[in-house]
C-alpha cells in the first residue's frame, strides 16, 4: 500500500516517517516498473516469482517507459525498472537511478496489423496503403521511434492519419475497424488474440527494439531485485517472452 503512493511529496513524507520494511519477515513487496508492452508476460513471471519466494508480493506498475522514468525521478519507490527502449533506460541511468549496468533481456520488432478479414485489402507497407487509414505510434515514444527508424531503413514514407501515444491505442483503433491498418510490436499483435490479422513486414529486423532491465539504486530489496532480474534474463524468463513473440 505504502509503495503505491506515487505523488512525490506524499511518498517522501511517508518514507521518512516510516521504518524501512523488514526483509524476510512476513510480507515483503517487490515493486517492478515495466513498459506497457511487457504487461501479460511480466505478470505471468511475477506469479512464478511469488511462488518461488513465499512471503514476497510482486507489484507491477505498467506504463509508458518515459512516464515510468519521470515517476522514478520524482522519487516513486521501485525496485526494478524494465524499459522498452535503450533511450529511456539511458535517461534513468544518467539520472543515477539505476544500480549496476542495466542489461538487454529481449527485443521486439514491428509488424503491420489490419482489422480481422482485412476489409481495406492491405498487402503490406506498399501502395495498398495509399488513401487508407494508417495509425502508428508517435515519434518520441519507443514504438514510434522504432517505426520512424524502420521507415527510414526501408526507404518508405508513411502517411498516418493518427500518431498515438500508446501502442495499445494503435491496436484498439485497428481492432475496432476505425483504422484500416496499424504498425505495432509483434507482441501486441499476438496479445490481440485474433481480433486483428498480422502482415509481417519484410525487413522489420532493421528496427529492432531493445528491452533493458535494471535494479533501481534506491531499492531496499537489492537481493530480491537482483533475483527478479535473473529470472527475466534466465531460461524461464526468455521462454515466456519468446512465447509472447519477443525476440522473434
Amino acid at each position, binding site marked *: 500500500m505504502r509503495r503505491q503512493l506515487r505523488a512525490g511529496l506524499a511518498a517522501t513524507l511517508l518514507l521518512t516517517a516510516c521504518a524501512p520494511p523488514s526483509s524476510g519477515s512476513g510480507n515483503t513487496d517487490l515493486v517492478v516498473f515495466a513498459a506497457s508492452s511487457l504487461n501479460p508476460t511480466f505478470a505471468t513471471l511475477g506469479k512464478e516469482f511469488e511462488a518461488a519466494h513465499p512471503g514476497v508480493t510482486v507489484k507491477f506498475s505498467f506504463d*509508458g517507459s518515459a512516464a515510468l522514468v519521470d515517476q522514478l525521478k520524482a522519487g516513486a519507490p521501485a525496485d526494478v525498472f524494465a524499459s522498452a527502449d535503450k533511450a529511456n533506460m539511458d535517461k534513468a541511468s544518467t539520472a543515477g537511478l539505476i544500480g549496476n549496468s542495466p542489461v538487454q533481456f529481449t527485443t521486439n520488432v514491428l509488424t503491420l496489423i489490419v482489422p480481422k478479414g482485412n476489409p481495406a485489402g492491405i498487402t503490406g507497407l506498399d501502395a495498398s496503403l495509399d488513401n487508407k487509414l494508417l*495509425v502508428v505510434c*508517435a515519434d518520441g*515514444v519507443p514504438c514510434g521511434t522504432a517505426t520512424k527508424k524502420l521507415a527510414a531503413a526501408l526507404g518508405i514514407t508513411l502517411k498516418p*492519419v*493518427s500518431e*498515438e*501515444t500508446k501502442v495499445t491505442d494503435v491496436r484498439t483503433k485497428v481492432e475496432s475497424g*476505425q483504422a484500416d491498418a496499424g504498425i505495432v510490436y509483434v507482441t501486441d499483435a499476438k496479445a490481440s488474440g485474433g481480433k486483428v490479422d498480422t502482415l509481417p513486414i519484410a525487413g522489420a529486423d532493421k528496427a529492432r527494439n531493445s528491452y533493458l532491465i535494471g535494479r533501481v539504486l534506491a531499492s531496499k530489496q537489492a537481493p530480491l531485485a537482483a533475483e527478479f532480474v535473473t529470472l527475466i534474463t534466465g531460461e524461464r524468463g526468455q521462454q515466456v517472452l519468446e512465447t509472447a513473440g519477443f525476440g522473434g
Partner: protein
Amino acid sequence: MIRPPLPRWLLLPVTAAVVFLGVPLVALLARVPWARLPALLSAPAALDAFWLSLRTCALTTLVALVLGLPLALLLSRGKGRWAAAGRTLATVPMVLPPVVAGLALLVALGRREPLGGWLAASGVDVAFTTTAVVIAQTFVAMPYLVVSVEGALRSTPDDYAIAAATLGASPTTVLRRVSLPLVAPAVASGAALAFARALGEFGATLTFAGSLQGTTRTLPLEIYLQREVDSDTAIALSVVLITIAALLVAVTARFSRGAWGQP
C-alpha cells in the same frame, strides 16, 4: 451590518482545502522550466496543438450555441416527463467519464458501426479528421451551455416576453430583442464554460478522433504525448492550459454576477 462571525476552527479545514487545491498547481508551476519556456512553446508541434485547440474550441462553442440555445429555450418552457427526459439527456454528457463519451461516440459514429458506416458510405467520413475533434468536444461541452442558459431562462420573469408580445413583437423578435438579450450574461458564461470544457477534452478525442499534429492533436493530446517524450514540454503546455482556463473562469465569474441588475 456585521454578520455573526464564523467559528474560528473553520480555519483548519479551510487551510486544508486551500492547500489541497493549491499545492498541485504550485508544484506544477515550480517545475516549469521558465528559461526554456519560450523555446518549448514556440516549437512547431506545440504551436500546432495550441492553434488547433483554439480553432476547434471556437468552432465547438459556435456549434454549441447554434444547437444548444434552441434546446435550452425549449427545455426552459418544458414541463412534465418529456422535458425531464430532455434535461437528463442534455446533462448526462457532463458527468460521463471522458473515455465513456469517446466509446459512445465511437460506437455511434465508428466506421464499422451502422450509423457511422452509412455516413461514411454517403461520403461523410469523419474518422481521424478535425471534424471528429469538434464532434467529440461538442458532445461533452454543449451541455454546459444548455444548463447555464436554461437556468437563466427559467429564472427570468415571463412579463418581459409578455410585454414585448403585446407591444407587437413577433415570437422571433421577442427572442432576438428581449429573451436572448436578457440571458446574454448566462449565454456568455455558458459559452465560456463550454469553451473551457472543450479545451480540456481529452478522452473522447483520443478514443474517437486520433492524434495527428495539426489535424487532431489538441493541446491535451500533445501534453499526453509529450509526457512520454519530453516532460518539460508537457509541463510548459500545461501552464498554457491552466492560464487559459483561469482566464475563462474569470470571464465566467464576471458574467454570472449578471450584467443587468434586475429592476
